[in-house]
């Protein structure tokens, strides 16, 4: 059974907000949608995102941003109401080199929403989530700030 988002409006608003944040917009992140509570984001290969010009491989830092952002969206799929969250820690395992010229997708899930902390895991891949490029685990602080992240996104 796939549970649906805890509050579809929170997910819709926050996913739109997160991919529109300046750094995510700079990297060209796209929100492709959420299956159950597992959102998928995409970043196209681009020359200015490369980390190793000899191979044309995307910089690991881009993958870090993609995992961070997709994981944050997965937390919002579990939140009952709007709140500000902040990454507490993040670990990325680079399982194999990304292929030059190919878009990278990231799928994340929040597998435990505790009262103060949210725990997430994510995979990055080209074609098949079962054949991942990178695996990421993160934790997020809930209610990290009284300043709402929504000041711009609220309709």
């Amino acid at each position: 059974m796939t549970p649906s988002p805890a509050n579809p409006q929170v997910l819709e608003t926050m996913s739109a907000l997160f991919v529109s944040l300046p750094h995510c917009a700079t990297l060209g992140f796209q929100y492709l949608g959420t299956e159950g509570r597992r959102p998928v984001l995409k970043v196209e290969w681009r020359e200015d995102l490369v980390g190793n010009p000899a191979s044309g491989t995307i910089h690991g830092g881009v993958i870090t941003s993609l995992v961070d952002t997709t994981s944050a969206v997965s937390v919002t799929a579990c939140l009952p109401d709007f709140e500000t969250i902040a990454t507490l820690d993040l670990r990325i395992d680079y399982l194999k080199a990304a292929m030059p010229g190919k878009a990278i997708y990231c799928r994340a899930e929040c597998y435990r929403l505790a009262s103060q902390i949210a725990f997430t895991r994510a995979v990055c891949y080209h074609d098949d989530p079962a054949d991942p490029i990178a695996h990421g685990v993160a934790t997020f602080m809930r209610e990290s700030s009284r300043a709402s992240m929504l000041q711009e996104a609220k309709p």
Partner: protein
Amino acid sequence: MSDFMEKLAQLRDAKDFTALIDSIPYARLMGVEMLEDESGELLFQLPFAERNVGNTALPALHGGLIGGFLENAALLHLIWHRESLEAPKIVDFSLDYLRSGRPQTLFARCEITKQGKRVAHVLIEAWQEDRRKPVAVARAHFLLTQ
């Protein structure tokens, strides 16, 4: 050894920090700067730029960007201090966020904790105004053999 690593080694020997950063597209996009301080230690800095923001309400630097900056610093630090011209490959990267990154210059320093035959371990620390108040600390493992 690739032509790219050979070029990096030449830039390293010439201490041409700007050209070194410019040769890595994403480091250039972030706006990374690299220099040697009075004691000859490598220092990385990231002047504030709007495109690096991840929270417009606070505002704060994007956490992923901070990660990318630190990961890039660790890689360059390692290349800088190695004899070999094989490109180190990152195996894993672990990052703890301690404070939000304010709209100011972010600094980073690295330390090679261990450099073995196959694997290197690098510690990275990032701060802004006060080095005693780190914004993030991270560690990375790199594979040194192909």
